[in-house]
């Protein structure tokens, strides 16, 4: 596969792999005729390499690339934003802020600049302020799932699980078939102790993606925990003990499936996990330990 194709693949996956990008791009940049032959793609590659250079702290390379982009697109807002990024990476966030504010003053609908202003707050570590700004931003741009996701992660960083879960609900509304979001939502609910919702969402994950290991672990842990709670609540039948236990739990045991169903779910998860791991021939000590844990 040519390095251009690899670069395009990394670009489309939107993963952050600056070192690989720079390595792939270095020969392309040194013989510039190769990049021009790629016509339209060349400018995207320049932007991609520029961002990777910032990530790797190679400010000089980034500036050179920015010069090329600027001479091609002198009046582009997208390139203007890249100037702000250089300043951010070089440690001049105030100048970046001035530039973004100018762009927003001229065109209040410039989403990219608005997001950078919020990202600047994040870079300074003012997470609560960034969350505030993001809430304001989402009032006008409610269909921006990337911003909802960002807000959810900021809330997670602040240990505000309930708010984070709400943001992920918005994301799921927009992309209901993406199992990664269901997984994240399930894990947040598990952290909050809302095991009934967590179980449902973990089941949704394994429904949407075949043999999802993380999903099956979730099903197993959640189902086993609910079984434990159910059996202890039936054992301590006397009223006083029960109400104390209910106060500890953040969800109602009425919303969970019946005991046999839960046991079957736990069994199924164990079975699929063992099958998935034994399909992978490179069995090792960790795999062995895992199987022992699953079978107990």
């Amino acid at each position, binding site marked *: 596969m040519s390095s251009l194709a690899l670069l395009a693949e990394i670009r489309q*996956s*939107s*993963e*952050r792999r*600056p*070192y690989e990008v720079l390595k792939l791009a*270095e020969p392309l*940049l*040194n013989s*510039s005729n190769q*990049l*021009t032959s790629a016509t339209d793609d060349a400018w995207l590659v320049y932007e991609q390499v520029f961002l990777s*250079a*910032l*990530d*790797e*702290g*190679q400010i*000089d*390379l980034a500036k*050179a*690339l920015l*010069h*090329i982009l600027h*001479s091609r697109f002198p009046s582009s807002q997208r390139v203007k934003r890249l100037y702000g*990024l250089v300043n*951010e*990476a070089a*440690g001049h*966030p105030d100048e970046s802020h001035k530039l973004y504010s100018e762009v927003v003053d001229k065109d209040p609908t410039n*989403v*990219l600049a608005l*997001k*950078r202003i*919020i*990202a*600047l707050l*994040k*870079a300074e570590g003012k997470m609560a302020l960034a969350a505030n700004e993001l809430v304001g931003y989402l009032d006008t741009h409610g269909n921006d799932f*990337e*911003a909802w*996701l*960002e807000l959810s*992660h900021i809330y997670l960083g602040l240990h505000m699980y309930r708010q984070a879960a709400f943001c992920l609900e918005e994301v799921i509304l927009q992309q209901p*078939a*993406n*199992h*990664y*979001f269901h997984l*994240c939502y399930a894990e947040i609910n598990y952290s909050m102790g809302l095991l009934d919702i967590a179980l449902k969402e973990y089941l949704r994950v394994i429904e*949407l*993606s*075949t043999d999802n290991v993380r999903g099956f672990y979730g099903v197993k842990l959640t189902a086993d925990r609910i079984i434990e709670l159910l059996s202890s609540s039936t054992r301590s039948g006397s009223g006083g003990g029960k109400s104390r236990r209910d106060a500890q739990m953040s969800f109602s045991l009425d919303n969970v499936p019946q005991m046999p169903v839960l046991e079957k779910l736990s069994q199924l998860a164990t079975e699929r996990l063992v099958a998935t791991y034994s399909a992978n021939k490179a069995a090792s000590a960790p795999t062995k330990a895992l199987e022992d844990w699953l079978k107990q």
Partner: protein
Amino acid sequence: MAASNASDGLKTVAKAVAVLAFVCMLHSGYAAREFLLYSKSIGRQDLTLPIEIVLECLGALGVMIFAVVLGVGELKPVSYEAEMKRYSIDGVFSRPSFQVYNHRGRYLRPSRSAAPAVPAAKD
């Protein structure tokens, strides 16, 4: 290599068959029109099409459907799960417009900070 050659050959044949079937369909349409004009001119009362024309039209349609599907090339799986396989969890959660750049990246590989030969600006 041989397999791809064989499937290429199949594709070419299928495309040719599709074109042929389309011509047959046009022909059946033309024949139907001629039949109706002729029937009117001789004043026939029963205007139902003869069975050959109907058969030619339906048969050509059936053949064309199969030939087009065979000739169109590799079909992609329709399930959303197959589509989701292309995305990794890192990509889905990366949020490119909120990335910050004042991180430790510049200290990870300081030896490379000497930038590679800077490409000259074209034009």
